């Protein structure tokens, strides 16, 4: 028997805060260079016409420039747009400073990405100040201690979903709350696709069951929602919109990888091999630094004609040495049935397991493990890629350091590892 019951809106005072740094990369660039402030600028993966926009400034967004557009498209909208290359260490620095400020209020916080944090103040002294007062204080501290150009949108809610939703209500520089008193008024202003996680496909599914508005979704019974989503997801949406927590889950590391958009199309495997090798070296180093070995390798290729091919392979032996990962990855890549210009190449390792000192014998070759560890130590001491496989010669400028919006799992470890040297 299904014992799930329709719940009222959570009457608990909101204790969750979602902090989102507005136009993160572009705002940080404007923070660093005051001469760029108030101007439409964008950070792009590459400054070339086909480079992908990663972060437009607030001024550029107002002109219609969006994340994911090509540089050439943006220049048609605004020819004077200034396009900058990403500077990952600047963004990591701001992320870590934000982390320090947030840590003054609670240790129950988690970074959701390079520019987003979720805090829970339940049971912490700061909660007595009031969530809105804490939000204001955090904004002031960011301006005072990190940068006077940086603005954050803060959302407060009884659960993570509503806190994030509240953070999106006013951008930039918002401070909004969704609670048991105002939720109806706020829901009535939103459309289904305004909800984080509901896009056109889900909205169509909901429409089919007679749900057209957020208030319809809020009022819908659990059986109706389960029918609309055809899964337990319907029940989760009921909980989210009623302010009950369902998203307080931290996912562990499942894979590690590296990706590169080729600035010029390459077709032949021997031309692509050095890039594949560098991607493997990056992924392998990060894997070992995180204390893992892998039992699977995956290669994904996006061709210039937008055709996508990918393949992964698992095996019984654990992989630790980048050279072994490269051999597997090259074999997988060579199995691609296409001989077309490659636009994007990605390699990842999966089926990760923690390296335990007692397991080192499993490699059957401790000398190899020692050699890999020694090479990693040299690269850590003198800089990445000081010692590389010969195939990577001439690759210094290829596959530069990049930072993902979503992937900050190894950021702290990376920095702690650096500062403790």
């Amino acid at each position, binding site marked *: 028997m299904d014992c799930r019951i329709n719940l009222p809106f959570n009457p608990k005072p909101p204790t969750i805060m979602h902090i989102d740094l507005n136009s993160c990369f572009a705002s940080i660039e404007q*923070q660093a260079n005051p001469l760029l402030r108030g101007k439409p600028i964008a950070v792009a993966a590459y400054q070339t016409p086909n480079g992908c926009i990663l972060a437009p400034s607030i001024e550029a967004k107002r002109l219609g420039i969006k994340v994911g557009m090509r540089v050439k498209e943006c220049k048609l909208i605004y*020819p004077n747009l200034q396009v900058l290359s990403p500077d990952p260490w600047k963004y990591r620095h701001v992320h870590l400073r934000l982390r320090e400020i947030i840590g003054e209020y609670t240790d129950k916080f988690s970074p959701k990405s390079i520019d987003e944090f979720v805090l829970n103040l339940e049971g912490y002294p700061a909660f007595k100040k009031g969530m809105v007062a804490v939000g204001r204080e955090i904004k002031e501290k960011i301006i005072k201690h990190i*940068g006077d150009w940086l603005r954050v949108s803060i959302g407060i809610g009884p659960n993570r979903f509503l806190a994030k939703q509240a953070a999106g209500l006013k951008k930039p520089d918002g401070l909004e709350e969704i609670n048991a008193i105002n939720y109806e008024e706020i829901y009535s202003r939103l459309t289904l696709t305004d909800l984080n996680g509901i896009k056109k496909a889900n909205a169509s599914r909901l429409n089919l069951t007679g749900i057209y508005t957020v208030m319809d979704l809020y009022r819908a019974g659990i059986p109706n929602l389960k029918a609309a989503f055809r899964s337990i997801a319907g029940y989760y949406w009921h909980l989210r919109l009623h302010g009950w927590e369902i998203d307080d889950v931290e996912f562990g590391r499942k894979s590690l990888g590296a990706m590169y958009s080729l600035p010029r199309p390459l077709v032949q495997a021997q031309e692509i091999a050095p890039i594949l090798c560098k991607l493997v070296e990056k992924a392998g180093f990060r894997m070992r630094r995180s204390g893992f070995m892998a039992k699977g390798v995956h290669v994904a290729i996006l061709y210039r004609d937008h055709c996508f091919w990918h393949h992964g392979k698992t095996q019984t032996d654990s992989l630790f040495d980048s050279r072994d990962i490269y051999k597997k990855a090259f074999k997988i890549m060579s199995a691609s049935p296409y001989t077309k210009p490659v636009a994007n190449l990605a390699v990842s390792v999966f089926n990760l397991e923690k390296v335990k000192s007692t397991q080192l014998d499993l490699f059957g070759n401790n000398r190899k493990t020692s050699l890999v560890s020694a090479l990693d130590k040299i690269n850590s001491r003198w*800089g990445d890629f000081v010692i590389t496989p010969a195939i990577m010669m001439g690759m210094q400028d290829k596959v530069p350091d990049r930072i993902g919006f979503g992937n900050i799992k190894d950021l702290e470890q990376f920095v702690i590892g650096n500062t403790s040297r």
Partner: protein
Amino acid sequence: MNQKVDVPIATLLSYDPKTRQVKPILVSWNGRDYPIIKIGLHHSYRVGRTLFHVFSAVSDSIFFRLVLNTDNLFWRLEEISDGLPD
């Protein structure tokens, strides 16, 4: 215009023990002195074990990306910009 460069640069640094702030106050570049009026951001990174401090600094009309190598205490200018489009 934003231009990447990589040249040594003469830099005057000040340390204020009261505010515990360290910042470049003047750079000499291309035969001219540029007083620094604002530090937009100060961050650091490592290459291997070598720590580099990056000061994003502006005079009245020019932005300088100044990098201090803490191994040899040499300064390099890595980027200049006037904030105008290319």
